[in-house]
């Protein structure tokens, strides 16, 4: 009987947690959209396409850290553009997803605004 009560209690907790979960998803919705992450076109492209893996601030999530590392890793900007365009290992190709101009803008953003 006691065990049943505990299980019933945990079920109530689960229902409350589910409601809080839904509330938090809606309440924490960022209002500014992608452009709010910086203002430049590169910032908006980064927020929509890159932040998922590399983090909003480029500090890295599943993908590696970009902030403060890309210029050293890719002294030639063309090499970084090639990686974004063609993909590499876990990094998907953005060929066809982003235009050449957008790729250039987002790469530029990672090398300047994001801290190179």
């Amino acid at each position, binding site marked *: 009987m006691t*065990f*049943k009560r*505990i*299980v019933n209690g*945990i*079920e109530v*907790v*689960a229902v409350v*947690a*589910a409601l809080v*979960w839904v509330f*938090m*998803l809606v309440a*924490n*919705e*960022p209002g500014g*959209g*992608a452009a709010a992450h910086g203002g430049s076109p590169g910032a908006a492209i980064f*927020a*929509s396409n*890159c*932040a*998922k893996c*590399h*983090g*909003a601030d480029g500090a890295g*999530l*599943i*993908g*590696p850290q970009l902030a403060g590392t890309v210029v050293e890793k890719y002294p030639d900007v063309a090499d970084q553009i090639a990686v974004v365009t063609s993909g590499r*290992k*876990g990094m*998907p190709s953005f060929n066809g*997803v982003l235009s050449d101009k957008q790729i250039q803008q987002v790469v530029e953003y990672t090398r300047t605004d994001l801290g190179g």
Partner: protein
Amino acid sequence: MAAPAVEHSDTRTKSANTKVLGVFLAGAAVSILLGVYGDAHTPTGEQPYNLFFTATVQLKVWFATTAVALALLQVLLAMRLYGKLNWPRTAPSWLGDAHRLCGTLAFLVTLPVAYQCLWALGFQTTPTRVLVHSLAGCLFYGAFVAKVLSVRIHGLPGWSLPVIGGVVFTALVVIFLTSSVWFFTERPAGLPLF
């Protein structure tokens, strides 16, 4: 004399079918709503929490693994409840409650995982692994709602609960395979396991 019995049986079948349809529609609505939210929402790319793990991704990987372990235990307990397993020989009285507890705990540990997925990453369509993961994530919660309803609503056909339970478990395993197993086997070099 036989006609009223047949009529009664028909009415019961119709009622059961209506209930199954209602359960299915409720589950489908939840799945679709989550998918639409994940697609429409602007991913923040942030890591809202990591507890004692290196980062949120490690937390998610291990929480998802815990959820699958609990779900597996729940399936085993269900098999004993329905007599598909004969061990232990005498089923303890608390078996049903233990089954419910495993499912509830599995659901609870998925919540912080799914929150980060939806809020920080959104519904993604590339690469294929991530698309399958996104779809399975939406399916899981829809099927979970359908399962909870099918437990609570009486008069459903006998096949509905095992089928819906099977969908919940399958979706969770697909989520696990496309996230935790991927992380364990193919994570980028240098990314800590915990």
